[in-house]
């Protein structure tokens, strides 16, 4: 389906002259941008199946189907429609989303902890996407890290609330009607305002109709499109259906995580949790990471690990470090819970002619900031479709690099989480990290070596590559070794308890 020989000779070898030529052409004849994109046509046919380059660009009146109205699908639709409007090309975008995000509980929820990262909040702000009051359930300005050797609060460098705790649906199951709106509802509304049509139908089949993607819905509705964008995530059966459709697609591997909502009331949450997320690095087998996220009336628990099950959830909730966070030293029964699947790998080739997979359906960031990677893949795919084309080759050159960057960073992320796992296992290492962080947080003007590393790991604000390189800096290592010795020396246990700042 895709010419790999051409692929190996493309972007890096074009040279500055070619880029300059392109820039001059686009600037002197803006119309040529819409007609020819970035001018890659001269390098051969776009696809093995069709050599007509105009056939691989969206034309006025073309139809685009987006399966899934979560962040990836909604943001893609919004970005594509905006860019096509800039190019003066009128297209139809239809989002297929069976859920009504105005419903409480699973019927209206996309099953996720609902944390919008610091970096994504800033970028959405730059894009002009302001999250309104009813969407943000709580602004987060700090993290409290809990370990068996103590707890420490890590403040955001600017002491500003730049992390948003949101609901993906309209609140947990059986929650009272309130003046709240889910994050997904807000984004799909923005897509609708940009011109997308939302169809509340479930897609049950995807196949090809004379080379064009065709979808069939549960109610029998069948439609052929010029481009199909799959943004259904990994929690729907659709990816399995596509695997059987002959599109040479293999779904990413995923593991079960756990999300639950506890009703504590706004006053209790304010008193006990404030505007801090509470993260836990505990030595519990199969547990990678867990966090308590304060929202309006509810507290959300997110657990990541090796196929999280009810037994692991019980072990976690019974840990003294967790119980002490709850009023009365006991977590209440949860109001709503689910075991959503989480990507562990990426799709090797998240595209084909006229088909592209975005968000979790293609590549997602490992463990953290899945909404952020949904934004990045949605933006890259929308730019590729609008400015370059919709053939597999276009996606390979102009969409795949963005995916590859996330996938490579995930590899380094595995090293970062490997260190975290080691930390969970080694008590003397936990003491050292606790001591170093507490001293940094207590000392005014101290350089936050460990604090910034932990902050970026917990929030997903920086690429894993950057986090890993920071931990390899000689000064960081020197401080860590010093704290390793100091924290585990004479009377270390007592000193560490004294240092803790819950």
């Amino acid at each position, binding site marked *: 389906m895709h010419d790999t020989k051409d692929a190996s000779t493309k972007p890096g070898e074009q040279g500055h002259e070619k880029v300059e030529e392109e820039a001059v052409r686009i600037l002197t004849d803006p119309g040529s941008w819409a007609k020819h994109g970035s001018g890659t046509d001269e390098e051969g046919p776009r696809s093995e199946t069709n050599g007509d380059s105009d056939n691989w660009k969206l034309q006025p009146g073309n139809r685009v189907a987006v399966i899934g109205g979560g962040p990836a699908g909604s943001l893609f639709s919004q970005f594509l429609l905006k860019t096509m409007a800039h190019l003066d090309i009128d297209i139809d975008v239809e989002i297929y989303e069976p859920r009504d995000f105005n419903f409480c509980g699973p019927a209206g929820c996309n099953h996720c902890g609902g944390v919008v990262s610091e970096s994504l909040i*800033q970028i959405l702000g730059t894009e002009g996407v302001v*999250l309104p*009051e009813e969407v943000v359930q709580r*602004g987060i300005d700090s993290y409290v890290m809990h370990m068996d050797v103590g707890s420490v609060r890590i403040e955001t460098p600017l002491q500003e609330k730049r992390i948003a705790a949101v609901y993906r649906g309209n609140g947990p199951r059986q929650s009272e009607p309130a003046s709240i709106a889910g994050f997904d509802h807000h984004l799909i509304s923005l897509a609708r305002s940009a011109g997308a049509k939302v169809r509340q139908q479930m897609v049950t089949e995807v196949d090809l109709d004379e080379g064009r993607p065709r979808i069939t819905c549960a109610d029998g509705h069948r439609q052929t499109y010029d481009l199909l964008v799959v943004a259904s995530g990994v929690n729907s059966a659709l990816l399995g259906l596509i695997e059987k459709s002959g599109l040479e697609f293999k779904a990413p591997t995923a593991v079960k995580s756990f999300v639950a909502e506890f009703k504590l009331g706004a006053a209790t949450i304010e008193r006990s949790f404030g505007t801090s997320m509470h993260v836990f690095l505990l030595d519990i087998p199969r547990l990678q990471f867990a966090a308590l996220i304060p929202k309006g009336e509810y507290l959300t628990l997110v657990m990541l690990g090796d196929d999280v099950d009810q037994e692991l959830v019980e072990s976690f909730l019974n840990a003294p470090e967790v119980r002490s966070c709850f009023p009365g030293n006991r977590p209440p029964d949860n109001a709503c819970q689910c075991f959503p699947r989480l990507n562990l790998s990426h799709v090797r080739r998240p595209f084909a002619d006229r088909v592209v997979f975005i968000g979790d359906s293609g590549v997602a960031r490992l463990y953290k900031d899945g909404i952020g990677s949904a934004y*990045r893949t949605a933006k890259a795919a929308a730019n590729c479709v609008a400015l370059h084309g919709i053939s597999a080759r276009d996606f390979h050159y102009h969409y795949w690099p963005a995916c590859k960057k996330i996938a490579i960073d995930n590899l380094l992320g595995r090293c970062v989480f490997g260190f975290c796992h080691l930390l969970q296992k080694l008590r003397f290492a936990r003491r050292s990290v606790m001591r170093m962080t507490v001293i940094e947080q207590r000392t005014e003007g101290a350089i936050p070596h460990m604090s910034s590393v932990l902050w970026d790991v917990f929030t997903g604000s920086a690429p894993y590559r950057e986090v890993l390189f920071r931990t390899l800096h000689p000064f960081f290592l020197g401080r860590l070794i010093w704290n390793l010795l100091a924290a585990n020396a004479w009377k270390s246990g007592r000193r560490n308890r004294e240092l803790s700042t819950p």
Partner: protein
Amino acid sequence: MSDLLGRNYQPGEDIVTEGEVGDCMYVIQQGSAEVIRTEDGVATVVDTMVAGDLFGEMAILEHTVRSSTVRAVDPVRALTIDRKTFLRRIQEDPSLALSILDVMCRRVRNLDTTIAHLKHQLAELSANPEGGSPDGSPGENAP
């Protein structure tokens, strides 16, 4: 408002101050603020910002001091955007710069209108030195 995103500023509080070194830009989430420029000791309101407006971008693009003061008119909630985060993302996705270009285009258009209006007033004053300003208002984007 205290649990929402960004930082809160009280009416009359400066969000950025003219002449200060800055390494971030801001997006207003709620409320309004005025842009104040001081020339020869005289402070002049040159623009008003509302929710969704972005400012302080010049400090990110150029390594210069703030060109104006931005002061909250009513309770303002503003989000800070770091230079590092913004430049990193713009490297990955140059189309993000379009949002900054949009802001700058709008400002240039507003400045053109104000300059044209002031020139028109100046011409009228030159033609009729004792007549004074015909309406006393320099333009919609100026104080």
